[in-house]
């Protein structure tokens, strides 16, 4: 038994995973991942809201441009998009900087990560929110109109609260995808959880320990998110009888 314990390296694992050792690096990586996920998800929500309204109520040009945006982004693998957007984005910023007589700009990994994943998230959020807005009974919007509410107030007071119940499950999915897509940023050298894990593992040769630990951290994020979104969904669906019956 002790032999097996030794072989798997579990005894050494605790030491390796301590905060003063590699464990601290993993947690820093997790913090970076979460920071990007939060930023990208938030940016995606904003893009998605404008995108959904643009697709539903915009003119022909707006709708065509948005159709191109959502189609292209959703058609190309995220990894490829990250490489394209990251290098194209930093190239453009450097060109602009040079044009104004500045030198090369060091692009912050967090900002780049948020921008790249935010653009990806925005395309999916556009479709999630468009579907949710369409699910709001027309009568509720008509009632708001008939009582003299201006368009923006209708959006703020009626459409958005009424669509939330339909949007939350889709948005919860997007959030989980955002947390895991941050791992793809390892390819551009951003020190998020996956890259930190790889570095720790290859430095110590304790692959099993570190990838298991990383997997556990991702799982914890998912479980915690699930609990939070369950509460949000309950709030967003206030007033709707639950499918199981009984009061909400």
């Amino acid at each position: 038994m002790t032999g097996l314990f030794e072989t798997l390296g579990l005894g050494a694992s605790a030491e390796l995973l301590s905060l003063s050792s590699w464990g601290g690096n993993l947690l820093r990586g997790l913090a970076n991942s979460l920071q990007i996920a939060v930023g990208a998800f938030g940016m995606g929500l904003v893009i998605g809201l404008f995108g959904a309204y643009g697709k539903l109520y915009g003119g022909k040009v707006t709708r065509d441009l948005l159709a191109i945006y959502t189609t292209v982004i959703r058609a190309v693998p995220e990894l490829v998009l990250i490489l394209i957007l990251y290098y194209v984005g930093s190239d453009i910023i450097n060109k602009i900087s040079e044009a104004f007589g500045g030198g090369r700009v060091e692009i912050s990994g967090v900002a780049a990560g948020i921008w790249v994943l935010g653009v990806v998230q925005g395309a999916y959020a556009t479709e999630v929110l468009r579907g949710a807005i369409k699910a709001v009974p027309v009568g509720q919007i008509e009632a708001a109109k008939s009582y003299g509410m201006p368009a923006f107030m209708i959006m703020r007071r009626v459409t958005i609260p009424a669509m939330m119940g339909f949007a939350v499950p889709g948005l919860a999915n997007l959030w989980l995808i955002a947390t895991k897509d941050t791992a793809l940023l390892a390819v551009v050298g951003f020190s998020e959880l996956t890259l930190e894990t790889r570095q720790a593992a290859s430095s110590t040769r304790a692959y099993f320990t570190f990838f298991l630990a990383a997997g556990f951290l991702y799982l914890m994020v998912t479980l915690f998110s699930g609990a939070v979104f369950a509460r949000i969904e309950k709030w967003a669906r206030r007033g709707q009888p639950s499918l199981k019956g009984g009061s909400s």
Partner: protein
Amino acid sequence: MDTAAAASAQQPDTRREAIRVEDLHKSFGDLEVLKGVDLIAHQGDVVAIIGGSGSGKSTMLRCINFLETPTSGKIVIGGEEVAMRADGSPASQKQIERIRTKLAMVFQQFNLWTHRTLLENVIEVPVHVLKVPKAEAIERARELLVRVGLGGKEDTFPAYLSGGQQQRAAIARALAVDPSAMLFDEPTSALDPELVGEVLTVIRDLAAEGRTMLLVTHEMKFAREVANHVVYLYQGRIEEQGPPAELFGNPQSERLKQFLSSVG
């Protein structure tokens, strides 16, 4: 009520005009639903609009507050003409929003805001559109809910109420804006038969207190009882109109006779 209506019908000129519709046309694509309708409702009038399905009665009502954009025509609310563009859409969004706050609509499908409680539904427009102080709006909303028989249901969400209760809440929401005229679009058509009565009772009370109302309805007995003017629409035109006793008691046109016998 009958005597009051009769008395007011004899001297309509002394009362202010609440709603005037002139030569209203409305087409959906190639289909012309309204083919030139004229209508005047004075303050305190209860005008019932009857007609078969597809006669344009709901469309006419919805054109008055521009939920539908008229194709052409003129609409005057409380003496103020709604400025229209050549295509019939309101020229000023500000103006139409202001006018809409004076016209409270009650819909066939209630259209309460399902994510808000009854109280929140009733105070929504006063607080956010009319900028009434919240405490004042809440106090008034409570009174109105009691008035329509929904005292104690303030914190209930619409989905937990019967159709009749939801419609009475919708009427409370309409009253909360202190409208100069109320537009009822088939308020009992979506209700189970046993729930129709409770809603009609509320509307009857409102008529009795002299509220100006336009009422699109299938309830002929009710129209005859509460209205002081009845308009019969047939295929987008006013076929016949007059006081209820005449219109129901002695219909002139063949179509109206047929319509009245078919709806019993």
